[in-house]
């Protein structure tokens, strides 16, 4: 891929980056014969989510036909090159005999590099959300915030396995004075034995069962003692899961959360079997999130 300006002369600039945080720039083109040309180029690098503009220039000479070709290697690339690095060209210009022509393209030979060397964590981690199934909540310090999830094997043909799930809920909030924050409810680590070829939601498909809740915690005083935390963004469920043995089968996942007190239903821990209020659907009933598929 190359570009030609509206002028008669040509300039093709290619940038090749590596995970060693270096780049090579190659320029070929055509200008006046036997003259000195200056190539100015620019491209942008996004590394670890940060955007860096890169600009450079170099001189070379044309031959009797006006052609030139120059490669400069080992130039430093900004950023850490530790994760995903993407590049896109911003443009190049060609200067010779006192004339500058603009509008040439800079083309990265490989626009995206995957440079992560971090070993994968034990199990795998994913998240769902933010999802606001419970709507706009005004959470008081001390409110019981309940969290639960369920999963199902997509295929009805899999080996027996134990699925281990460590998860947490994160709830962002805003205070009356404008400050913001988030608090976390740890839902603990649970093992679920799933028989071979089972295609039922685990640990239960019954949203009213106590088993559908994995954990509960009391909301902190994130906005100061007695002050309400305004939660309009919903909740994020983050889980780290593993299978033993690994069945190599797809799983569907979903989650839910509930603050009964914020719904005017009393401050109820939905895992507390001694509290009769937990059995009422309007107290501990909650909508499921969207379903996500985990390979």
């Amino acid at each position, binding site marked *: 891929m190359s570009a030609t300006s509206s002028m008669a002369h040509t300039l093709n600039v290619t940038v090749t980056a590596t995970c060693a945080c270096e780049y090579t720039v190659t320029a070929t083109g055509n200008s006046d014969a036997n003259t000195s040309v200056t190539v100015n180029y620019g491209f942008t690098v996004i590394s670890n989510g940060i955007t860096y503009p890169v600009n450079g220039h170099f001189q070379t000479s044309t031959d009797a036909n006006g052609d030139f070709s120059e490669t400069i290697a080992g130039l430093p690339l900004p950023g850490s090159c530790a994760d995903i690095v993407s590049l896109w060209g911003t443009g190049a210009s060609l200067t010779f005999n006192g004339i500058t022509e603009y509008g040439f393209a800079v083309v990265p030979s490989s626009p995206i590099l995957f440079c992560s060397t971090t070993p994968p964590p034990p199990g795998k981690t994913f998240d769902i959300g933010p999802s606001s199934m419970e709507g706009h909540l005004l959470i008081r310090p001390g409110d019981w915030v309940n969290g639960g999830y369920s999963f199902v094997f*997509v295929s009805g043909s899999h080996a027996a396995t134990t699925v281990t799930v460590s998860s947490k809920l994160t709830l962002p909030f805003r205070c009356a004075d404008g400050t913001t924050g988030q608090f976390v409810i740890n839902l603990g680590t649970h093992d679920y034995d799933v028989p071979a070829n089972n295609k039922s939601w685990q640990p239960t498909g019954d949203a009213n069962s106590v088993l559908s809740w994995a954990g509960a*915690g009391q909301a902190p005083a994130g906005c100061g003692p007695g002050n309400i935390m305004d939660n309009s963004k919903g909740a994020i469920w983050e889980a780290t899961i593993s299978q033993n043995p690994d069945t190599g089968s797809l799983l569907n996942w979903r989650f839910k959360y509930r603050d009964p007190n914020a719904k005017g239903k009393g401050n109820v821990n939905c895992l507390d079997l001694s509290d009769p209020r937990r059995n009422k659907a309007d107290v501990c009933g909650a909508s499921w999130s969207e*379903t996500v598929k985990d390979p």
Partner: protein
Amino acid sequence: MACGGSRTTAPGSTAILVAFCLIALATSDIAAFSAAQSETPPDKALTDTLKVLDNAIHLLGDSSSNYRKVLLDAIAAFPSSTDDTVGADVRTFLARAPEPGGEFRCTVDFVRARARKALLRLRDTLRKDYVSPVEPAVCYAAPFALDWTQAQNTGGWLDIYGYDFDRVSPEMVLVSRESYRDVTAALVARSHYHLALKLGDRAVRLSSDSVSLGLTWGHLIHHSISIIQPTSRLCSARVETIPAGRTISYSPPRISGDRFPGRPGTTVRADATLDYSSNKLEATICMAAADPAEHEAVFSGCAVEFLYTTDPDRVIEAAFGELTSQVSYVHSNRTRDVQNGRPYGPVRQWAFNGFRPSSLEGGDISMTARLNEIRLVSTEDEACVSPLAYLEAKRTTVVDPVTRQSLDPQLKKIDPAILKLRPRFASPTP
């Protein structure tokens, strides 16, 4: 159970890099999570910046708007005291946005929606609200479903178009009836909006057991491309109806002033946009009310409202009608205004409450949108081929005659209304 609270505010750390680099939209998220300080009272620069952003967000809700013009107008309208990162973020979006055409086979509606989402994130960052990591999105695949026979031809590629693929590590899995296999080695990132999977020359070995290809990041499959075989079954598809009358409410926060915006001449605008993914339907609702006088009260904001989930083993593939409703008017002297929506948009009626023109007290204004009937198409998400995907593949690629002979009769069982639909962001001319 352990609970821990933390409070965060200004994206202070982002400013450090401003002098010599543009900051991508994603960057601000990190700061919003990590920096911790108290919020200062809203200053004029922030208020004026939010006003510009809110106006652009509202304009981008209109499907006829030119997103480039809206963003360029916003850059020009930012006050000179606006944090440099804001303009840089918008310029970065413009530099990265692809032009629909041969190299990007999605409609401009998709880019406009991404632009709006980017401004909403920017708004949340400035407001020090929670901002989640940038999530890529897929808008189209060519072919939209893969004919097993054609896919194995020499030189065959699958092209996937979307946005922000460089924010994650994309992977590809080949899903079979009972398991899946990583085929990421055949995946090539052409740009942040274009991934290509090499299929031919045995780069991906398909078998009669192959069901789909799944584009994955963050350990989840975010987009599936069905593999069509003569033995394939078309998924069941149905039209689901959410009855008219459902309401969604929102009360925007005050972003400036200490009086109430109830005076005649107050400009009020609101919009609601439906969005669906997986088996979930939600609405993004925005409202702004601004007193015409300088330095007077301005209320504005947006929120995402959960509306509906269909069965967990189905996916929502389409919605009938327009997905956005907008309203804009100048308030007179009532305490409550009612505006009618349009019959083919999601909102039937807008009601605005809380205007108290004579009061000096602050208070809450609110908007309640009463929705029209919403009709969705949901499809079974098992080892089958979506009818919508099959039809799109037939429209845009060559499907083996034997496969057609097997699958075409199954279309007779599908609601004719569904058969007229195309994928949401498919270009009008393939």
